[in-house]
């Protein structure tokens, strides 16, 4: 009887874990849509995100990379409503921040942004694939830095991590493409 009770508890746990309770993180078949109607709060966040990305464009084009980073940091620091599209926009912003920091040699800062972005998007999406790609580029740059510093072993390890991450990025992108084709294309 004890074994049956254990099986019962395990099964109920699995079922409860996969039930959609409004979370925006995918992982179970029914995770999307999240169930919250698109409302003015979500729209306000998206509007602010749009403005700050365009501001970052203008600053980047005028050679003001720190200004661009500052604009995007404001965006990721904003209170964010719980919604799938908000998570994806924040993840994309983190990827952009990581690229900007990478371009200026701030590898640790870039890595932190990528990690924060990956926590926002767990399922196979272009957003996650892009973050993994950027993380691969960060590790590639780290490998180059180790080579320049004469640290061969560390360089080899960083290079292996870069290849692994870039391969993972490709796998995620392939999953997204396969799913889109199976669903009959994009909307």
């Amino acid at each position, binding site marked *: 009887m004890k074994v049956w009770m254990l099986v019962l508890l395990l099964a109920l746990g699995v079922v409860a874990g996969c039930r959609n309770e409004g979370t925006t993180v995918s992982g179970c078949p029914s995770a999307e849509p999240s169930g919250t109607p698109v409302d003015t709060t979500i729209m306000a966040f998206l509007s602010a995100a*749009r403005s700050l990305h365009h501001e970052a464009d203008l600053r980047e084009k005028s050679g003001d990379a720190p200004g661009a980073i500052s604009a995007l940091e404001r965006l990721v620091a904003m209170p964010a409503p719980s919604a799938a599209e908000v998570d994806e926009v924040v993840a994309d912003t983190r990827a952009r921040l990581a690229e900007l920091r990478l371009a200026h040699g701030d590898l640790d800062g870039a890595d932190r942004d990528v990690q924060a972005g990956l926590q926002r998007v767990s399922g196979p999406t272009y957003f996650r694939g892009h973050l993994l790609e950027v993380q691969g580029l960060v590790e590639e740059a780290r490998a180059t830095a180790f080579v320049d510093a004469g640290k061969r072993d560390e360089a080899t390890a960083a290079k292996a991590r870069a290849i692994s991450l870039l391969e993972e990025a490709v796998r995620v992108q392939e999953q997204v493409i396969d799913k889109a084709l199976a669903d009959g294309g994009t909307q």
Partner: protein
Amino acid sequence: MPDPRDEHELPDPELARVLRAAWSPDDLSVEEHRKLVAQAIAPRRSKVVRVSFGASAILALAASVLLAVWTDRGPRPGPPSVGPTLSLSRSTQSLFAQPFAPRGGESARVDRIAMARAADLRENQFAKWGVR
């Protein structure tokens, strides 16, 4: 040949004991009392009972799992005539046909997301107002 009347004249010891017990019963002996109580309170869990409980539990478990899975996969039944159908928050993955370029394009992506959701929001507001 014995006379049958002789048998009736002599008292049968068992008959005498039964008659006496009916008229004036003795107390049970302590040992006999313990034996009877032990028999009465002994757990009687037969195999049949255990199997039937186990089978019922497994059936209930299977039914609950199936119900949960079907409920999640199927369209969520909403009240048919209570409130308008609203556009829900969801992944924007379907707005993009190709993987993102290695560098740039973030503003164009957020433009597209914001425009798509602005349209959803307008629809939701019209639906709430009953203007559709």
